[in-house]
Protein backbone atom coordinates (compact mmCIF):
# COMPACT_ATOMS: atom_id res chain seq x y z
CA UNK A 1 0.00 0.00 0.00
CA UNK A 2 2.84 2.38 0.78
CA UNK A 3 5.45 0.74 -1.44
CA UNK A 4 5.96 4.00 -3.33
CA UNK A 5 6.79 5.76 -0.07
CA UNK A 6 9.10 2.95 0.99
CA UNK A 7 10.85 2.99 -2.36
CA UNK A 8 11.28 6.78 -2.21
CA UNK A 9 13.26 6.21 0.98
CA UNK A 10 15.28 3.48 -0.72
CA UNK A 11 16.11 5.72 -3.69
CA UNK A 12 17.22 8.57 -1.41
CA UNK A 13 19.53 6.29 0.56
CA UNK A 14 20.89 4.59 -2.56
CA UNK A 15 21.62 7.87 -4.36
CA UNK A 16 23.32 9.28 -1.28
CA UNK A 17 25.61 6.26 -0.88
CA UNK A 18 26.34 6.12 -4.59
CA UNK A 19 27.24 9.80 -4.68
CA UNK A 20 29.45 9.47 -1.61
CA UNK A 21 31.30 6.64 -3.34
CA UNK A 22 31.74 8.83 -6.42
CA UNK A 23 29.68 6.45 -8.54
CA UNK A 24 28.38 7.46 -11.94
CA UNK A 25 25.73 4.82 -12.31
CA UNK A 26 23.89 2.46 -10.02
CA UNK A 27 23.59 -0.96 -11.67
CA UNK A 28 21.79 -2.99 -9.07
CA UNK A 29 20.02 -2.50 -5.74
CA UNK A 30 19.51 -5.48 -3.43
CA UNK A 31 16.87 -5.48 -0.68
CA UNK A 32 15.87 -7.96 1.99
CA UNK A 33 12.14 -8.02 2.64
CA UNK A 34 10.59 -10.18 5.34
CA UNK A 35 7.39 -12.00 4.47
CA UNK A 36 5.82 -10.83 7.73
CA UNK A 37 5.92 -7.21 6.54
CA UNK A 38 3.15 -5.67 4.46
CA UNK A 39 5.46 -4.83 1.56
CA UNK A 40 4.51 -6.67 -1.62
CA UNK A 41 7.29 -7.74 -3.97
CA UNK A 42 5.54 -6.78 -7.23
CA UNK A 43 4.50 -3.42 -5.87
CA UNK A 44 8.08 -2.71 -4.79
CA UNK A 45 9.35 -3.62 -8.26
CA UNK A 46 6.76 -1.38 -9.86
CA UNK A 47 7.58 1.54 -7.57
CA UNK A 48 11.27 1.06 -8.33
CA UNK A 49 10.64 1.17 -12.08
CA UNK A 50 8.64 4.35 -11.78
CA UNK A 51 11.14 6.13 -9.53
CA UNK A 52 14.35 4.98 -11.23
CA UNK A 53 13.13 6.33 -14.57
CA UNK A 54 13.48 9.87 -13.31
CA UNK A 55 16.73 9.30 -11.45
CA UNK A 56 19.91 10.01 -13.35
CA UNK A 57 22.00 7.71 -11.19
CA UNK A 58 19.51 4.85 -11.15
CA UNK A 59 17.97 4.98 -14.62
CA UNK A 60 19.64 1.69 -15.66
CA UNK A 61 19.48 -0.04 -12.32
CA UNK A 62 17.68 -3.28 -11.58
CA UNK A 63 16.13 -4.22 -8.27
CA UNK A 64 16.84 -7.55 -6.62
CA UNK A 65 14.62 -8.56 -3.70
CA UNK A 66 15.48 -11.35 -1.29
CA UNK A 67 12.25 -12.40 0.37
CA UNK A 68 12.95 -13.68 3.88
CA UNK A 69 10.65 -16.40 5.17
CA UNK A 70 9.55 -16.19 8.77
CA UNK A 71 11.52 -18.06 11.40
CA UNK A 72 10.64 -18.30 15.08
CA UNK A 73 12.01 -19.71 18.27
CA UNK A 74 9.84 -21.52 20.80
CA UNK A 75 10.46 -20.08 24.24
CA UNK A 76 9.19 -23.26 25.85
CA UNK A 77 11.14 -26.05 24.14
CA UNK A 78 13.75 -24.02 22.29
CA UNK A 79 12.86 -25.31 18.83
CA UNK A 80 13.75 -23.00 15.94
CA UNK A 81 11.45 -23.39 12.95
CA UNK A 82 10.37 -21.71 9.74
CA UNK A 83 6.69 -21.10 9.12
CA UNK A 84 4.30 -19.13 6.95
CA UNK A 85 2.49 -15.88 7.68
CA UNK A 86 -0.39 -17.70 9.36
CA UNK A 87 1.10 -20.27 11.69
CA UNK A 88 3.24 -19.13 14.57
CA UNK A 89 2.65 -22.01 17.01
CA UNK A 90 5.60 -24.25 17.81
CA UNK A 91 5.33 -27.36 15.59
CA UNK A 92 7.30 -29.42 18.13
CA UNK A 93 5.44 -28.85 21.39
CA UNK A 94 2.49 -26.68 20.33
CA UNK A 95 3.89 -23.92 22.57
CA UNK A 96 2.23 -20.50 22.60
CA UNK A 97 5.24 -18.47 23.70
CA UNK A 98 7.20 -17.90 20.53
CA UNK A 99 9.51 -15.20 19.32
CA UNK A 100 9.97 -14.14 15.72
CA UNK A 101 13.64 -14.24 14.75
CA UNK A 102 13.38 -13.42 11.05
CA UNK A 103 10.68 -12.22 8.70
CA UNK A 104 10.22 -8.54 9.55
CA UNK A 105 13.21 -7.26 7.56
CA UNK A 106 12.95 -4.17 5.39
CA UNK A 107 16.56 -3.55 4.55
CA UNK A 108 18.81 -2.25 1.78
CA UNK A 109 21.52 -4.91 1.64
CA UNK A 110 23.87 -3.53 -0.96
CA UNK A 111 24.26 -1.73 -4.28
CA UNK A 112 26.40 -2.37 -7.34
CA UNK A 113 27.76 0.79 -8.91
CA UNK A 114 29.91 1.92 -11.81
CA UNK A 115 32.89 3.92 -10.58
CA UNK A 116 34.71 6.40 -12.83
CA UNK A 117 37.63 3.99 -13.44
CA UNK A 118 35.16 1.39 -14.74
CA UNK A 119 34.04 3.89 -17.35
CA UNK A 120 37.64 4.74 -18.30
CA UNK A 121 38.55 1.16 -18.95
CA UNK A 122 35.27 0.63 -20.77
CA UNK A 123 34.09 2.07 -24.06
CA UNK A 124 32.81 5.34 -22.62
CA UNK A 125 35.04 8.14 -23.87
CA UNK A 126 32.87 10.85 -22.44
CA UNK A 127 34.67 11.05 -19.07
CA UNK A 128 37.53 13.25 -20.28
CA UNK A 129 37.64 15.09 -16.94
CA UNK A 130 38.74 12.01 -15.04
CA UNK A 131 42.34 10.88 -15.41
CA UNK A 132 43.94 7.75 -14.13
CA UNK A 133 46.18 9.83 -11.84
CA UNK A 134 43.28 11.39 -10.02
CA UNK A 135 41.61 8.07 -9.31
CA UNK A 136 44.25 6.67 -6.98
CA UNK A 137 43.97 3.01 -6.02
Amino acid sequence: MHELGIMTGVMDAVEKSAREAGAQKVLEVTLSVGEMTEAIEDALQFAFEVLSESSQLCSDATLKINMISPKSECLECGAVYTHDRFHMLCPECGGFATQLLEGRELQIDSIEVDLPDDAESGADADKSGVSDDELGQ
Partner: protein
Amino acid sequence: MAHIDLKQPILDKNDQLARELRQRFAENHVFVVDLLASPGSGKTSTILATIDALRDEFNIAVIEGDIASSVDAERIKAQGTPAVQINTGGACHLESAMLKRAIDMLDLERLDLIIIENVGNLVCPTDFDLGENMKVMILSVPEGDDKPLKYPGVFQAAEAVILNKVDTMPVFNFDEEAFTSAVNQLNPQAPIFRIAATKEQGVSEWAEWLAEKIRAVQ
Protein backbone atom coordinates in the same frame (compact mmCIF):
# COMPACT_ATOMS: atom_id res chain seq x y z
CA MET B 1 32.03 -2.13 -11.04
CA ALA B 2 31.98 -1.93 -7.27
CA HIS B 3 29.93 -3.55 -4.59
CA ILE B 4 28.83 -1.35 -1.69
CA ASP B 5 27.43 -3.00 1.44
CA LEU B 6 24.76 -0.90 3.09
CA LYS B 7 22.84 -3.17 5.50
CA GLN B 8 20.62 -0.19 6.16
CA PRO B 9 17.04 -0.49 7.41
CA ILE B 10 14.71 1.09 4.88
CA LEU B 11 12.62 2.76 7.55
CA ASP B 12 15.75 4.00 9.31
CA LYS B 13 14.55 7.58 9.79
CA ASN B 14 11.16 6.52 11.08
CA ASP B 15 12.66 3.93 13.42
CA GLN B 16 15.27 6.34 14.78
CA LEU B 17 12.65 8.95 15.62
CA ALA B 18 10.41 6.23 17.09
CA ARG B 19 13.25 5.22 19.42
CA GLU B 20 13.61 8.84 20.54
CA LEU B 21 9.88 9.04 21.23
CA ARG B 22 9.93 5.74 23.13
CA GLN B 23 12.71 7.14 25.29
CA ARG B 24 10.69 10.29 26.00
CA PHE B 25 7.61 8.25 26.89
CA ALA B 26 9.65 6.13 29.29
CA GLU B 27 11.25 9.16 30.94
CA ASN B 28 7.82 10.66 31.51
CA HIS B 29 6.26 7.38 32.67
CA VAL B 30 3.54 7.59 30.08
CA PHE B 31 2.12 4.46 28.44
CA VAL B 32 1.29 4.73 24.73
CA VAL B 33 -1.19 2.54 22.85
CA ASP B 34 -1.41 2.56 19.05
CA LEU B 35 -4.88 1.43 17.94
CA LEU B 36 -5.14 -0.23 14.54
CA ALA B 37 -8.43 -1.07 12.83
CA SER B 38 -10.60 -0.52 9.77
CA PRO B 39 -12.71 2.62 9.44
CA GLY B 40 -15.99 2.20 11.29
CA SER B 41 -14.84 -0.73 13.42
CA GLY B 42 -15.29 1.35 16.56
CA LYS B 43 -11.88 2.85 17.33
CA THR B 44 -13.31 6.13 18.58
CA SER B 45 -16.10 4.37 20.49
CA THR B 46 -13.57 2.06 22.13
CA ILE B 47 -11.38 5.02 23.05
CA LEU B 48 -14.34 6.83 24.62
CA ALA B 49 -15.34 3.73 26.60
CA THR B 50 -11.74 3.16 27.70
CA ILE B 51 -11.42 6.75 28.90
CA ASP B 52 -14.64 6.32 30.87
CA ALA B 53 -13.27 3.23 32.57
CA LEU B 54 -9.83 4.65 33.38
CA ARG B 55 -10.25 8.40 33.86
CA ASP B 56 -10.53 8.18 37.64
CA GLU B 57 -7.12 6.60 37.97
CA PHE B 58 -5.12 8.02 35.04
CA ASN B 59 -4.54 11.24 33.12
CA ILE B 60 -5.31 10.40 29.51
CA ALA B 61 -4.80 12.13 26.16
CA VAL B 62 -5.77 11.02 22.66
CA ILE B 63 -4.05 11.55 19.33
CA GLU B 64 -6.40 11.33 16.38
CA GLY B 65 -4.83 10.18 13.14
CA ASP B 66 -7.84 8.79 11.36
CA ILE B 67 -8.52 10.86 8.26
CA ALA B 68 -12.01 9.46 7.89
CA SER B 69 -13.15 11.25 10.98
CA SER B 70 -12.04 14.78 11.80
CA VAL B 71 -15.01 14.92 14.19
CA ASP B 72 -13.42 12.29 16.42
CA ALA B 73 -11.12 14.72 18.21
CA GLU B 74 -14.17 16.84 18.99
CA ARG B 75 -16.07 13.81 20.35
CA ILE B 76 -13.20 13.12 22.72
CA LYS B 77 -12.64 16.74 23.77
CA ALA B 78 -16.36 16.95 24.53
CA GLN B 79 -15.67 14.36 27.25
CA GLY B 80 -13.03 16.61 28.77
CA THR B 81 -9.99 14.67 27.54
CA PRO B 82 -7.21 16.46 25.64
CA ALA B 83 -7.14 15.40 22.00
CA VAL B 84 -4.81 16.40 19.19
CA GLN B 85 -5.82 15.88 15.58
CA ILE B 86 -3.01 14.91 13.23
CA ASN B 87 -3.47 16.15 9.71
CA THR B 88 -2.23 13.15 7.77
CA GLY B 89 -2.81 14.81 4.40
CA GLY B 90 -4.41 11.63 3.10
CA ALA B 91 -1.56 9.32 4.16
CA CYS B 92 -2.45 5.65 4.59
CA HIS B 93 -0.59 5.29 7.90
CA LEU B 94 0.99 7.39 10.65
CA GLU B 95 4.76 7.82 10.77
CA SER B 96 6.78 8.83 13.79
CA ALA B 97 7.48 12.32 12.42
CA MET B 98 3.72 13.01 12.31
CA LEU B 99 3.28 11.61 15.79
CA LYS B 100 6.12 13.72 17.16
CA ARG B 101 4.42 16.94 16.06
CA ALA B 102 1.30 15.90 17.98
CA ILE B 103 3.26 14.72 21.02
CA ASP B 104 5.00 18.07 21.21
CA MET B 105 1.61 19.67 21.82
CA LEU B 106 0.94 17.53 24.91
CA ASP B 107 2.19 17.91 28.46
CA LEU B 108 3.83 14.48 28.77
CA GLU B 109 4.87 15.01 32.35
CA ARG B 110 1.32 15.02 33.67
CA LEU B 111 0.02 12.21 31.43
CA ASP B 112 -0.21 8.49 32.23
CA LEU B 113 -1.78 7.18 29.05
CA ILE B 114 -1.84 8.28 25.42
CA ILE B 115 -4.11 6.48 22.97
CA ILE B 116 -3.35 6.92 19.29
CA GLU B 117 -6.18 6.34 16.81
CA ASN B 118 -4.18 5.33 13.74
CA VAL B 119 -5.46 5.72 10.18
CA GLY B 120 -8.27 3.23 9.50
CA ASN B 121 -6.28 0.64 7.58
CA LEU B 122 -5.42 -2.98 8.34
CA VAL B 123 -2.29 -3.06 6.21
CA CYS B 124 0.18 -0.19 6.36
CA PRO B 125 0.35 0.92 9.99
CA THR B 126 1.68 -2.52 10.92
CA ASP B 127 5.13 -1.78 9.51
CA PHE B 128 5.64 1.56 11.23
CA ASP B 129 7.05 1.84 14.71
CA LEU B 130 5.77 4.97 16.42
CA GLY B 131 7.59 4.49 19.69
CA GLU B 132 4.39 3.17 21.27
CA ASN B 133 4.44 0.62 24.12
CA MET B 134 2.08 -1.60 22.20
CA LYS B 135 -0.14 -1.87 19.17
CA VAL B 136 -3.66 -3.13 19.76
CA MET B 137 -5.96 -4.13 16.96
CA ILE B 138 -9.73 -3.88 16.88
CA LEU B 139 -11.86 -6.03 14.65
CA SER B 140 -15.60 -5.51 14.62
CA VAL B 141 -17.99 -8.41 14.19
CA PRO B 142 -19.61 -7.13 10.96
CA GLU B 143 -16.20 -7.25 9.23
CA GLY B 144 -16.28 -11.04 9.38
CA ASP B 145 -14.46 -13.88 11.12
CA ASP B 146 -12.12 -14.45 8.16
CA LYS B 147 -10.15 -11.21 8.62
CA PRO B 148 -7.19 -12.84 10.41
CA LEU B 149 -6.62 -14.85 7.25
CA LYS B 150 -6.80 -11.79 5.02
CA TYR B 151 -4.74 -9.44 7.17
CA PRO B 152 -2.36 -11.64 9.17
CA GLY B 153 0.22 -8.88 9.64
CA VAL B 154 -1.88 -6.67 11.82
CA PHE B 155 -3.03 -9.56 14.02
CA GLN B 156 0.59 -10.56 14.41
CA ALA B 157 1.81 -7.07 15.30
CA ALA B 158 -0.85 -6.55 17.97
CA GLU B 159 -0.23 -7.26 21.63
CA ALA B 160 -3.95 -7.69 22.17
CA VAL B 161 -6.97 -8.12 19.91
CA ILE B 162 -10.27 -6.41 20.69
CA LEU B 163 -13.34 -7.95 19.10
CA ASN B 164 -15.87 -5.10 19.07
CA LYS B 165 -19.62 -4.99 18.39
CA VAL B 166 -20.16 -8.45 19.92
CA ASP B 167 -23.78 -7.37 20.43
CA THR B 168 -24.27 -7.83 16.67
CA MET B 169 -22.95 -11.40 16.61
CA PRO B 170 -26.31 -13.11 15.98
CA VAL B 171 -26.99 -10.87 12.98
CA PHE B 172 -23.70 -11.51 11.22
CA ASN B 173 -23.22 -15.26 11.69
CA PHE B 174 -19.79 -14.62 13.10
CA ASP B 175 -17.94 -17.90 13.67
CA GLU B 176 -16.17 -17.07 16.88
CA GLU B 177 -14.44 -20.41 17.17
CA ALA B 178 -12.86 -20.05 13.73
CA PHE B 179 -11.86 -16.49 14.55
CA THR B 180 -10.28 -17.41 17.88
CA SER B 181 -8.32 -20.31 16.48
CA ALA B 182 -7.01 -18.21 13.57
CA VAL B 183 -5.89 -15.46 15.97
CA ASN B 184 -4.26 -18.03 18.27
CA GLN B 185 -2.30 -19.43 15.36
CA LEU B 186 -1.14 -15.98 14.24
CA ASN B 187 -0.39 -14.57 17.63
CA PRO B 188 -0.50 -17.22 20.34
CA GLN B 189 0.26 -14.77 23.16
CA ALA B 190 -2.36 -12.12 22.41
CA PRO B 191 -5.45 -12.01 24.60
CA ILE B 192 -8.77 -11.46 22.82
CA PHE B 193 -11.18 -9.05 24.49
CA ARG B 194 -14.83 -9.29 23.45
CA ILE B 195 -16.51 -5.94 23.85
CA ALA B 196 -19.43 -3.83 22.71
CA ALA B 197 -17.96 -0.37 23.07
CA THR B 198 -21.23 1.50 22.79
CA LYS B 199 -23.07 -0.88 25.15
CA GLU B 200 -20.54 -0.86 28.00
CA GLN B 201 -20.12 -4.58 27.49
CA GLY B 202 -16.78 -6.30 28.21
CA VAL B 203 -14.97 -2.98 28.45
CA SER B 204 -13.96 -3.35 32.09
CA GLU B 205 -11.94 -6.52 31.45
CA TRP B 206 -9.97 -4.83 28.67
CA ALA B 207 -9.55 -1.66 30.72
CA GLU B 208 -8.24 -3.57 33.74
CA TRP B 209 -5.70 -5.44 31.59
CA LEU B 210 -4.56 -2.09 30.15
CA ALA B 211 -4.47 -0.48 33.61
CA GLU B 212 -2.01 -3.17 34.78
CA LYS B 213 0.31 -2.21 31.91
CA ILE B 214 0.04 1.49 32.70
CA ARG B 215 0.77 0.94 36.39
CA ALA B 216 3.86 -1.06 35.44
CA VAL B 217 5.55 1.98 33.85
CA GLN B 218 4.68 4.42 36.61
